[in-house]
């Protein structure tokens, strides 16, 4: 039986042909699968690189004014570079370049090691960290006489540059509206006696000869003094609750608290301190029985580092009864 089967040659060519075709298909499939694997590998590499590119682009360091602070020492000169990390990722600083534009000299600082004299510490900046201090041990002492370019290089390859001393245009860019802040609930009224300032609930008795004097306390939360001028004004909106909700807009100007007259000159509000601003509203009359709610904002102008400065402050509500 087996001999018959072995001798039977019918269909042999079909078997041989099929095996041959299967071999060719397997060869092709193998090649195709291998190419697919390579392609996937490439795509994975591309995705990985894209991800790191996105992280790189995301990095955002903002230098704080004055950029360099806390100068100290006689060599190595110690100072701090203040930065805000506005990025949701931690940032590692790997190098700092300090270019002295006045003397055309370049200083390169790497992370400080226990054995090195110069370098910088605290270069790892956590995400959303404000006022981060990078401690620099420099062979040169940045001073106000020379002009420097500071460049921070991050591990992901981003460069962040600032100037020291910072040009005034950049200083303005860094001035935030909150540099002068209103001290909440400090708005008071007074009349004849300027030292007799009332709490934020007043009556018609506080108005003398149609004049209303108001005082507000402001603080300078910035890092440099602000000199306010007489051009600063108080813009206010008063809602008359008993007169069909009429709304009045009035303006007030700064006065000398002693004389209740024009502003004596200027008011310097030092960083970290408060200043009293006095406003004078003429021809003011509160009809008896009226209830008025005062909401005000102050438009302040003055100088900062010898240059024009302006700011606006929104004050809290203030109720006056007639």
């Amino acid at each position, binding site marked *: 039986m087996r001999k018959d089967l072995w001798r039977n040659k019918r269909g042999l060519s079909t078997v041989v042909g099929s095996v*041959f075709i299967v*071999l*060719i298909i397997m*060869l*092709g499939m*193998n*090649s195709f699968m*291998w*190419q697919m694997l*390579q*392609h996937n*590998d*490439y795509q994975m*590499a*591309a995705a*990985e*690189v894209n991800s*790191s*590119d996105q992280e*790189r682009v995301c990095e955002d360091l903002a230098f704080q004014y004055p950029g360099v602070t806390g100068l100290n020492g006689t060599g190595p000169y110690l100072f701090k570079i203040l930065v805000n990390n506005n990025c949701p990722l931690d940032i590692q600083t*790997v*190098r700092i*370049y300090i*270019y002295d*534009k006045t003397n*055309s000299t*370049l200083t390169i600082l790497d992370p400080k090691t226990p054995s090195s004299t110069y370098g910088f510490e605290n270069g790892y900046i956590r995400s959303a960290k404000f006022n981060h201090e990078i401690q620099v041990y420099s062979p040169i002492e940045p001073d106000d006489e020379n002009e420097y370019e500071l*460049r921070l*290089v991050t*591990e*992901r*390859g981003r*460069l962040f540059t600032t100037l020291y001393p910072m040009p005034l245009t950049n200083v303005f860019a860094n001035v935030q509206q909150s540099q002068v802040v209103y001290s909440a609930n400090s708005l008071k009224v007074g009349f004849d006696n300027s030292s007799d300032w009332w709490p934020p609930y007043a009556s018609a008795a506080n108005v003398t000869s149609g004049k209303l004097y108001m005082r507000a306390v402001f603080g300078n939360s910035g890092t440099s003094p602000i000199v306010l001028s007489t051009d600063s004004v108080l813009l206010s909106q008063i809602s008359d609750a008993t007169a069909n909700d009429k709304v009045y807009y009035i303006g007030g100007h700064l006065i000398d608290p002693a004389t209740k007259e024009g502003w004596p000159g200027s008011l310097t509000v030092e960083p970290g301190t408060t200043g009293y601003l006095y406003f004078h509203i003429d021809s003011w009359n509160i009809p008896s029985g009226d209830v008025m709610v005062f909401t005000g904002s102050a438009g302040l102008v003055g100088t900062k580092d010898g240059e024009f400065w302006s700011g606006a402050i929104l004050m809290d509500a203030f109720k006056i009864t007639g």
Partner: protein
Amino acid sequence: MNKKLSLLRDRKAVSQVVSSLLILAIVTTLCVTVYGWAVSTVGDSQDNFNFIYEHRKNAIKERFTLEYVFFTDTDGNPGDHKNVTIYVRNVGNTDLTISDVDLNGTLSPTVNPTLPQTLPSNQVIKLSVTLATSWNSNSTTHIAVTSERGNLIQGYWEAP
């Protein structure tokens, strides 16, 4: 015995046997040749494919940055304004080889250290380019650094 001899002497259908053997030999030879050619072609194709993909994969992984450019003088010649020092950092995950530095579209012939230079990942290299003519103050220079895999970083820098 006689039967065997008569079988050998019988010449009928010999041509058919010979032709069958001949065809079998030709077909077998052709099959082997075609199979060998196919295997070789597929192998070559895979090698080429592998080379291209590996090259492209490594090329897209390359990331480097022009960290700083410092316009200065050549050593021992203060005031000649013939040196541009370039700091290049490899911020990618693979090593790269810097092959060329171009200043204002012209290949810089004198670079110290001599190019090509391999730059490992997360390392910075200082390339000192000596110019044929002095740089001018406040002039802008286009600087391009090319890697061996064909990537390019470039920028404009102003002399002090």
